[in-house]
């Protein structure tokens, strides 16, 4: 990724003393999103025409600010105000906002900026203002290739989010998922990738063979997934940039449920043989395979803690699917789920403190979280069928998929991607060109 995007981040005014300026609390359900005015990025006539020719967008300044606005809005923490009410012209606002005017429309924060076309590059600068305190909170400028204009909008959103919440954003990210089409009995599935906001959707496989459960490497643009190529279900690696694929290891049977270790150097997965599934790792550099669990029950869905020291996984050794935690060498196995119902798909939060899971209880499926010792179970959403949560890189949002009930003629089936905040608020359906399942969230692309 770094190869094809050259981003020059020049911090011209480091955020100095933040004392007393606006802050957004993201640890609770936010019922009063912060009113924010996103003034369109101003653009001079020559630059506007150059971008129009290059990108066939009439006003790239407007387009970029629309991305910022949409990101902030979907986060649920901000309420972008209607542009029709803005009194000050974008170019003048960027020089020196008339805070009274912005105060009048009840904006508490203001984003201004400009775009220029310089040496065939796109140069953006933007500022974040605290309207009530009448102060600049941050100012940034960067230059990139014009084709990256959407990412510019995401990077601005991440900067604003971080400045106002004190935590890293998650907008300059992508989602890999399984695109689905066709009748339920003969579903066609393809790997697909898109920006976090649903833009730039691209199919990565043709649908000739069944593919399932793609997961990002947290450190690169590699993906691991399950493919039924030649009717042999095996874990594969895919380099998204080059399209190169390879099978992981040489196992005499089905390998499945793959995930990367936090350093990206190992794959952890299940291998099924003679009716028994155990957890294995394979080192991607020296190809050494290690057996981590050794139990006659089903052990699957492994996920590392962010420090790599522990693994949570799913096992039915107690009779039903439950969640267990063990040390990364397989020792000290401990069951952590004890509530009513059965538990699956545990995923360790990138912040380290929580494990997200799927729960089935009395015919309903839930997405929930618990602490890593199993305490503090909290169910976020209930539905007919949903599973497979994946964390945003800042550990504040979960993406998962949901299926609808089918009638006796097999009609009414759909599978869609959804997201929900850790707080249990802000549940949203994510638009995809086809049905979708098994989403996995990438790390921040610009780190």
């Amino acid at each position, binding site marked *: 990724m770094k190869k094809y995007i050259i981003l020059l981040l020049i911090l011209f005014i480091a955020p100095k003393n933040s004392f007393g300026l606006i802050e957004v609390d993201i640890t609770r359900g936010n019922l009063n999103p912060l009113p924010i005015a996103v003034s369109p990025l101003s653009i001079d006539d020559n630059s506007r025409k150059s971008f129009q020719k290059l990108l066939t967008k009439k006003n790239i300044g407007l387009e970029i600010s629309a991305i910022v606005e949409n990101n902030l809005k979907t986060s649920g923490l901000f309420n972008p105000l209607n542009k029709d009410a803005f009194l000050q012209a974008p170019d003048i606002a960027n020089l020196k906002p008339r805070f009274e005017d912005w105060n009048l429309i009840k904006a508490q924060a203001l984003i201004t900026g400009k775009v220029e076309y310089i040496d065939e590059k796109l140069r953006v600068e933007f500022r974040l203002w605290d309207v009530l305190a009448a102060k600049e909170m941050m100012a940034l400028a960067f230059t990139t290739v014009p084709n990256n204009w959407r990412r510019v909008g995401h990077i601005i959103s991440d900067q604003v989010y971080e400045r106002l919440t004190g935590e890293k954003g998650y907008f300059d990210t992508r989602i890999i998922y399984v695109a689905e089409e066709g*009748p*339920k*009995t*003969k*579903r066609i599935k393809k790997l697909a990738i898109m920006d976090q906001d649903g833009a730039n959707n691209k199919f990565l496989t043709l649908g000739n063979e*069944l593919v*399932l*459960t793609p997961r990002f490497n947290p450190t690169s643009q590699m993906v691991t997934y*399950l493919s039924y190529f030649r*009717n042999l*279900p095996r874990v594969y690696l895919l380099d998204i940039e080059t399209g190169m694929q390879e099978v992981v290891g040489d196992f005499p*049977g*089905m390998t*499945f*449920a793959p995930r990367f270790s936090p350093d990206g150097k190992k794959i952890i997965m*299940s291998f*099924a043989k*003679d*009716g*028994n*599934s155990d957890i294995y790792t394979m080192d991607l550099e020296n190809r050494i395979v290690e057996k981590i669990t050794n139990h006659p029950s*089903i052990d*699957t*869905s492994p996920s590392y803690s962010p420090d790599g020291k522990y693994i949570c996984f*799913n096992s*039915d050794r107690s009779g*039903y*699917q439950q969640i267990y935690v063990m040390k990364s060498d397989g020792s000290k196995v401990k069951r952590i789920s004890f509530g009513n119902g059965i538990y*699956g*798909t545990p995923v360790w939060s990138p912040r380290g403190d929580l494990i997200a899971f*799927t729960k*089935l209880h009395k015919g309903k499926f839930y997405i929930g979280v618990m602490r890593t010792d199993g305490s503090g179970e909290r169910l976020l959403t209930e539905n*007919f*069928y949903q*599973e*497979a949560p994946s964390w945003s890189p800042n550990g504040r949002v979960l993406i998962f998929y949901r*299926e609808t*009930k*089918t*009638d*006796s*003629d*097999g009609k009414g*089936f759909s599978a869609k991607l959804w997201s929900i905040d850790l707080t249990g608020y802000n549940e949203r359906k994510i638009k995809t060109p086809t049905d979708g399942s*098994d989403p996995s969230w990438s790390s921040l692309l610009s780190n």
Partner: protein
Amino acid sequence: MKLNKILKNSLLVVFACLALSACATKKVSTGQMQGDVYTGTDTVEYLASGVPDRVFFATNESVLTTASRETLRKQAAWLRKNSDITVVLEGHADERGTREYNLALGERRANAAKDYLMTYGISSDRISVLSYGKERPVDSGSNPLAWSKNRRSVTVKAN
């Protein structure tokens, strides 16, 4: 008067209960399921005359029922007679479970069938196992009967 009314009401309740239980028994008496194991023949195909191709399982289970063992003995007899034939046992789960666990469960079910065929003299070289988890339901409905048809291991000719 008042007592009469109460009696009338309770009679109504009793009738309602009877009507409901009649419905409930009717559902079971279609004879398609025993417990939650499918016992019908809707989806069953035949490897040869009198040799059904599939066996069914209870929710979350991979234990072979008496009927399943009978089917597998027929398959074993047919395989012994046709010693050049190799088979794939395709294991499946219903849609009411997480994808990864269901892949493992499908594998476990197909292996239960494989083990049984082996005890009736079929060499493991002639049997391979393929789990589809919940990816290939035979009935796309979201109801207990459809789910019971989907919890299955199907013996498919490989050559």
